């Protein structure tokens, strides 16, 4: 499992990399980027929180 950011919706609020710096990074101007780290399966609830916290609704979870 990992995250996907819809870059057409991301406007750089920074909630993702603030809440989960181990899974997200900020690019040079503060837009979110998914780190190349698979997310452990036991983290489903926290992943849901991060998806919900993005005010733009730009984050989704990719299975597999």
């Amino acid at each position, binding site marked *: 499992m990992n995250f996907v950011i819809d870059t057409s919706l991301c406007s*750089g609020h920074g909630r993702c990399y603030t809440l989960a710096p181990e899974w997200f990074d900020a690019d040079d101007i503060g837009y979110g980027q998914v780190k190349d780290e698979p997310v452990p399966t036991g983290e489903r609830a926290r992943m849901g929180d991060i998806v919900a916290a993005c005010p733009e609704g730009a984050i989704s979870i990719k299975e597999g």
Partner: protein
Amino acid sequence: MLQAAPADGEMSMSSMLERAEAHGLPVHTFDLEHDERLGVDPFAVWDEATKVGGLFYSPANRGFLVAADFETVRHVLQDSKVWSNLPSTIVYTKEQVDLDVPPLTMDPPDHTRYRRALAPLFSPKAVAHLEPRIREISHELVDRILAQGTCDFTKDFAAKLPALFFLEWLGLGTEDVDRMFHLAERATFEFPTQEERDDIEARIDAIVRGAIRDRRDDPRNDLASAFVRMRAEGQEIPEDIVVGMAKLAFIAGQETTSTQLGYIMWHLARNPADRQLLVDDPSRIPDAVEELMRFYNTGGSSGRVAKEDGELNGFPVKAGDRIFIARCGADRKLAPQVQLTRSGVPHSAFGLGIHRCIGSHVARIEMRIGLEVWHERIPNYRVPADFVAGHRYGSFMQQLLSLPLELAPADR
């Protein structure tokens, strides 16, 4: 002053109302310019509006649609193709007053070009170095408050921290801080005529233009110098646009953080368990700030005008329709209680879409450090038993007028 709306304005207003009635859209008078309850309990006015529906029509003043739940707010703010910032007016006032604060008062592609130029100056990495200075100013303000022994938080801390920090960063110095803060307040809270609005903007233009011209020959380590160096797609930016963007920074850099801090402390001063949570564990402050911004969303500049026909929640939108974005009500509706430790409920206090508050990362640092320093130095405080909160809603946002605090009361 117009006594009656011009004929075409009247037509489009009545046709908005007719369309609302024909399509079963709720009609609810939502009057941010005149509703006196906004001075007493503004949050009740927002909550009442959200109960009407996610989208409704308000016949107040020139007539406008209101987006009042989070999905509708998000949809409108993300759809800059239909929902334009041109003309840039305050949609809910009786008189149409145009604003000039780029790049907020621009649409793509102009907006995109200048926003890209500004973005590197305000990214989290670019503003991290400001932390020590913000902490220093916070300590100085607390020193002063403790020395005087009494405190009106809105005046002595919330108004001072952003103004002192931001004016210095912008490069304007802080000798004239009270006059500059007053100008930013006028630009945020007055319901001006066009002439008055132009006058306020011209005064701010003159101040920031002076700094920008000065830095062309004498660059320093401040925002004005960075604005001078800024290029848009490799091209020099016309001075009037640089000055306009600095004017927006001048207004938004002072007033927004100030009003938000006032509401955050109003909550903490009335809710001892929440206050104690932050005293005991300051690492909870960032999540608490987000939650309190959501629950006490100060409103923000929130109007759009349809530039083409479209559809919103099944309602047929016509080019020229005005819409007000009721961000505060929408955010509160997501969760009707404050819970400082949660992180999974979003807010729109920094706006959404392409005009998301570019200074949000700086504002967060100011609020976090201000609250860290305050709670480290003054962990016990409360509002006096006889305090009655007064508020005002202006052309851009709402504000708590005063917040007297009893510091370290002996009976705790």
